[in-house]
């Protein structure tokens, strides 16, 4: 207590900075502020982590889809194959069958593949649209018919995926002198040293691990009762016992299966996949033909191991052998996947592209913008500046605010009922999609435009009225230009909202599988988010990365639109 307070001349309540109570209050306030800051930082960190993880995940999955492998082969364009009856006009060339040409090119590049199944697998390496590039080149320049052209042939999605994520391959030089019994079919390779003993030990170790796993599984199942379980336990025990028998006889040769890493012998320019392995000899199928049955000196032949077991891979040992050989020959080329950006949808992942969806999106958004911007802005101006205050305008205002919160699928149902069924507009068309999305975006734009108009200081309007401008002149000459950046921002955000919308478009049939790129507002089309949805549903592994890549494109689209909104706001922002 101060003297003044005691004397009663001054105010009776005053903050005493030194009292313990006041200091405790200050400390409590500091604690509260620190806690609040911590909450804020925590929330921000959490959001950042989510966003970073999301974007990183999408990039990791999607970026590989922007590259595509192809085989660069010398294709001899046989005039007889492409120009029936000697005609070399565009339609003949376009209609020709290029399959024999690409097959011939494969045979030339990798001769000696005679087994039917090997030939089939070789042919399957190429995409069904492998020759599309060649076809285009020939149509553009028919004089190339009859020549031998170095042509990139698109690989199938499976082959492409393998090349993007190869199995680890190890190679070990061998010490003995090896003698193969043949050059193709099933062959036996004998060696003068016990070269395969180490591998045999390795295999037995693996078998031991597998037997151990089987026994553990049997032990676990034994805890449960039931006949089926008992049968299963018995089977597991038998399998483990059989394995144990093999393990216990170290010198006996082993038969390999798909659950083991694949062991191969590279000898005399060929490749033999081991099916039976002993200490000094192996038996197996020839994957790549040998040049001869000559003896191979020590150090000139190798044991090759594909670490991933064949049953865990999408590609067979034969296909891996082909691809690795092509790769070693320098015939595999990795290039930017223009097809992804220039082609329409396809059932073949390597031929599928997003151009159709992009064009469909652009057309749809054009319709939406053309519909929403004028209607939205005029409605906002009328409501904000001209409409009187009445029960009707109140009702309209409430309804506009409610419309902005209506689930988008409802607009889709409305579009289906009104535009398709009642008005008979074409199904799957960007026109209908655009109008439906327009209904969805309109309330957003009206609300944003009204907010922007309201944010213009009334003094500007008064100034204009003061010099004798009419109400309309004041608004169109002064208020609207000042509100325009805000209106633009709202519109672009509304459009970005429309860009990401799927549900209403499903209802009006924009979910169809559409290969052709739309050329007009009434052509059947689809849009990016629907394309993503369609692809995400497909079982092919290659479509997984296509999906992520399409998401990347969609996000870029969004970033560009939002960037534009920010730029417009900064560019036209006026201070008063």
């Amino acid at each position, binding site marked *: 207590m101060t003297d003044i307070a005691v004397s009663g001349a001054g105010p009776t309540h005053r903050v005493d900075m030194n009292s313990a109570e006041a200091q405790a209050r200050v400390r409590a306030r500091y604690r509260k502020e620190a806690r609040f800051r911590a909450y804020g930082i925590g929330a921000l960190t959490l959001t950042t982590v989510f966003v970073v993880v999301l974007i990183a995940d999408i990039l990791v999955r999607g970026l590989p889809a922007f590259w595509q492998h192809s085989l660069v082969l010398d294709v001899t364009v046989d005039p007889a194959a492409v120009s029936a009856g000697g005609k070399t006009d565009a339609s003949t060339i376009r209609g020709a069958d290029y399959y024999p040409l690409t097959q011939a090119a494969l045979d030339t590049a990798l001769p000696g593949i005679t087994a039917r199944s090997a030939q089939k697998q070789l042919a399957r390496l190429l995409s069904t649209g492998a020759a599309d590039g060649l076809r285009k080149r020939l149509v553009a320049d028919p004089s190339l018919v009859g020549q031998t052209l170095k042509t990139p042939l698109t690989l199938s999605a499976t082959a492409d995926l393998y090349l993007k994520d190869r199995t680890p391959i190890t190679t070990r030089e061998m010490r003995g002198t090896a003698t193969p019994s043949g050059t193709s079919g099933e062959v036996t390779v004998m060696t003068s040293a016990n070269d395969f003993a180490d591998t045999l030990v390795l295999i037995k170790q693996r078998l031991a691990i597998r037997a151990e796993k089987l026994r553990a599984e049997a032990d676990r199942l034994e805890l449960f009762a039931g006949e089926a379980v008992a049968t299963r336990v018995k089977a597991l025990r038998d399998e483990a016992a059989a394995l144990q028998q093999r393990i216990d006889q170290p010198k006996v040769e082993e038969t390999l299966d798909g659950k083991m890493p694949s062991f191969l012998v590279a000898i005399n320019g060929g490749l033999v996949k081991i099916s039976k392995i002993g200490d000094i000899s192996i038996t197996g199928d020839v994957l790549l033909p040998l040049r001869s049955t000559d003896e191979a000196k020590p150090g000139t032949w190798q044991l090759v191991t594909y670490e991933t077991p064949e049953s865990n891979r999408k590609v067979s040992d034969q296909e891996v052998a082909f691809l690795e050989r092509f790769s070693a020959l320098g015939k595999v080329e990795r290039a930017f996947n223009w097809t992804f950006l220039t082609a329409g949808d396809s059932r073949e992942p390597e031929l599928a592209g997003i151009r159709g969806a992009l064009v469909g999106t652009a057309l749809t958004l054009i319709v939406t913008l053309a519909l929403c911007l004028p209607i939205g802005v005029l409605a906002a101006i009328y409501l904000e500046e001209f409409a009187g205050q009445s029960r009707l305008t109140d009702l309209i205002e409430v309804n506009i605010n409610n419309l902005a919160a209506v689930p988008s699928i409802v607009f889709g149902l409305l579009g289906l009922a009104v535009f398709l069924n009642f008005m008979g507009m074409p199904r799957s068309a960007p026109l209908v999609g655009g109008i439906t999305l327009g209904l969805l975006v309109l309330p957003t734009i009206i609300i944003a435009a009204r907010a922007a108009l309201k944010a213009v200081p009334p003094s*500007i309007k008064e*100034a204009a009225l003061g*010099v004798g401008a009419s109400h309309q002149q004041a608004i169109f000459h002064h208020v609207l230009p000042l509100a325009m950046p805000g209106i633009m921002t709202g519109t672009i955000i509304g459009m970005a909202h429309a860009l990401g919308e799927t549900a209403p478009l499903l209802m009006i049939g924009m979910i169809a599988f559409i290969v052709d790129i739309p050329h007009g507002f009434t052509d059947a089309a689809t849009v990016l988010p629907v394309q993503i949805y369609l692809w995400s549903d497909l079982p092919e592994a290659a479509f997984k990365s296509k999906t992520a890549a399409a998401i990347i494109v969609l996000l870029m689209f969004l970033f560009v639109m939002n960037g534009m909104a920010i730029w417009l706001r900064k560019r036209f922002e006026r201070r008063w």
Partner: protein
Amino acid sequence: MALTAEAIMDTMVMHPEALSVTALPKVVAKDVNVYYGDKRALQDVSVEVPNRGVMSFIGPSGCGKSTFLRCINRMNDTIPSCRVTGKISIDNQDIYDKSLDVVQLRARVGMVFQKPNPFPKSIFENVAYGPRIHGLSHSKTDLEEMVHASLAKAGLWSEVKDRLAESGTGLSGGQQQRLCIARAIAVNPEVILMDEPCSALDPIATARIEELIDDLRKNYCIIIVTHSMQQAARVSQRTAFFHLGELVEEGVTSEIFTSPKEKRTQDYITGRFG
């Protein structure tokens, strides 16, 4: 020396007492009532404003002086709840008459607001806007001449002649207000309404505006609302005192300030309330 109109004008300006209300009334208000919804903001205000010179409206906050000022160019029309009764005429023409176009009225009655409110456009565009929408200029040089003349009359020309293309909002507060005056006189109004034009300005800028008002009174009928009694005494020839929505007293400025008839006026000007 012949007795020209200008000479008569000068006489009147030098001797404000010579300005008789009945001689040249420009704005005549009769029994004006203004309602904001149910609230009566002005009660039976009747006043006559002379053809040339400055008339000031003084009074405490909320007394209705700004409301009355805004009735003269019908700025109150923009307020939905506002209702005006009575009669206001300019040159014997009823400005609330149905046949009168409010936009043309505002071209004849210019207004300068409390806060400088130039358009966020170039200085040139600010001044040129009025002549342009009223079709006063017929060529580009014509328009440039008008802008020049208006800025010169507002005493701003020498300061801005090299930066006409720059934004009007980049000027200082006092310059902005003079720009607003230039904008108002660009359409050659007969009456200029000023709603506390100096309240947002520093004393130097205020002095500058007051000088300008003194220059303009030779050619315009100016009505100024002010909170500063010194300002009213300095710039105006006639003064009207408003209190609680009533026009208490109106007369020659020197008389109002030296020998007010009403007690309320005396109390206000001596600082007893308000």
